[in-house]
């Protein structure tokens, strides 16, 4: 059954006054929590799924990561020693870390690095040698911002210097 929705009745005077009051309250003590990105960075948990690194020493070339990948982002590249090592194409990768879970020897492991700019499409294709260490990008951030809740359930923004975090 169709129900007709009518405009709620608001007293114009109190409505305008309460709107202005909300505006003034937000102006005096804003509840904004925007991060000014290049200078500030969001704090993330250790389990955050970022770029993936492969420890070639441990890798047994078992192809389990390539099998597990739901988007077929992992290619296996043949190395001079005859073994195959994984390389991730980050244009396809959805950072689900199924490959990390699938790895039987713990050679693949995730980092918390999630932001970086690729200058062109070729640079999104990571070869095994690119996977050997975490990707290096210039980090302009001076502060790390962490969100938390106080005892009343209100949002609390904690701003830390980058050196204090790690």
């Amino acid at each position, binding site marked *: 059954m169709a129900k007709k929705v009518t405009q709620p009745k608001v007293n114009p005077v109190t409505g305008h006054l309460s*709107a*202005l009051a*909300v*505006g003034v309250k*937000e102006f005096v003590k*804003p*509840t*904004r929590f925007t991060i000014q990105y290049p200078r500030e960075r969001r704090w993330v948990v250790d389990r955050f799924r970022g770029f993936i690194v492969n420890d070639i020493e441990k890798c047994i070339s078992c192809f389990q990561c390539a099998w597990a990948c739901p988007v077929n982002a992992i290619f296996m590249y043949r190395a001079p020693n005859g073994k195959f090592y994984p390389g991730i194409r980050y244009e396809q990768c959805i950072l689900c870390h199924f490959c990390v879970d699938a790895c039987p020897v713990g050679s693949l492991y995730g980092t918390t690095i999630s932001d970086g700019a690729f200058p062109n499409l070729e640079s999104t294709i990571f070869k095994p040698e690119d996977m050997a260490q975490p990707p290096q990008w210039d980090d302009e951030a001076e502060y790390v911002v962490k969100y938390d809740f106080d005892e009343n359930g209100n949002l609390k923004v904690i701003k830390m210097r980058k050196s204090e975090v790690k």
Partner: protein
Amino acid sequence: MGYLEPMVQIPFLEPLINFLLKVPVIGPIVNFLLWMPIFAVWFVPGLIGLFIPLIFVIWWERKAAARVQWRYGPLEISKRLGGVIQPISDLIRYTLQEIIIHQEADAAYFIHMPVFGFIFALLPVLFIPAGPNVYAINTGYNILIAAVLISIFNVVVIVTGWASTDKWAYIGTVREAFMYAAYEIPFMLSVIAMIILFGTADPFMMVNEQVAHYIPGAILNPIAFIVAVVTTAMASSRFPFEIVENDTDIVVGPFTEYGGLIFGLTMTMSYEKTYVMTLLLSILFLGGWSGPYIAPLGDLSAPLWLGVRVFLVMMFFSFLRAVYPSYRLDQALRIGWRTLLILSVVSVIWSIVIRLALPVV
């Protein structure tokens, strides 16, 4: 050689001015600039008096709206001052941009109308005094003349939109025409109510009445004050009546096709109108330039107190951007033709009643 009289007296600059007046070429120029009518047109309440609030209010509008809406607003230019010189950098950018006149536009009207608009929007300043000794023209009917001159400006906006030959400009023009008809009558009636209340159209006498009784016009006739505030918001397309230049519906309304410096002119037009109408509001309702006399400033003491009021009222109008969404055209027209028209007629009756009951005021 005599001096142009009367000159504006500024005691704390007196030694410098006296020295400059004796310098051969600069002396007459300084004398001319300090001559009262020219000073009123160029400095307060004229061009410089417009630009200082303009730069501050544009910054304040963006910054305050951003703060309320959980953003930061302009920040990157002059980061330590919170981006306060952003409007100046925008002005430089507008100046350096190319002015494009598209093929369908009526070129003569298209180019000239923003300039006329800029002049017409500032024209009422000739008749609005900034203090007992700072005014351009004094006729004894200044408030009426200023209120009428304010309404010329809309013709320019309509011609601007028509000359642009553009879909959005056309819609904006039609909206401007509708809005103009909706707010003009209540605004005029609220001004007339104050003229009836004080029994004069002379701004000096109006302010003197308010000072003499220690009661501002806003308390003597609160209905006229409310109508004047709402119509000012409508006339200068401030929120919640940003209908003519609504960015989200019709790009910038009548000024869609403009670019470069001419767009800068069109953008300042609505702020100019806010400034002029705010001056009128301050004189009619908020006690004008009344305030303690500051001896070192001399004749500039009164404009300072008027400027404080103008700043505060303009900041209030800009702050509305943070609070309100904008009304639809039909809602605004309903407010104009129904609520405001009735209220303004009531305010005129209120004035007549007060005038009859308290002949002293």
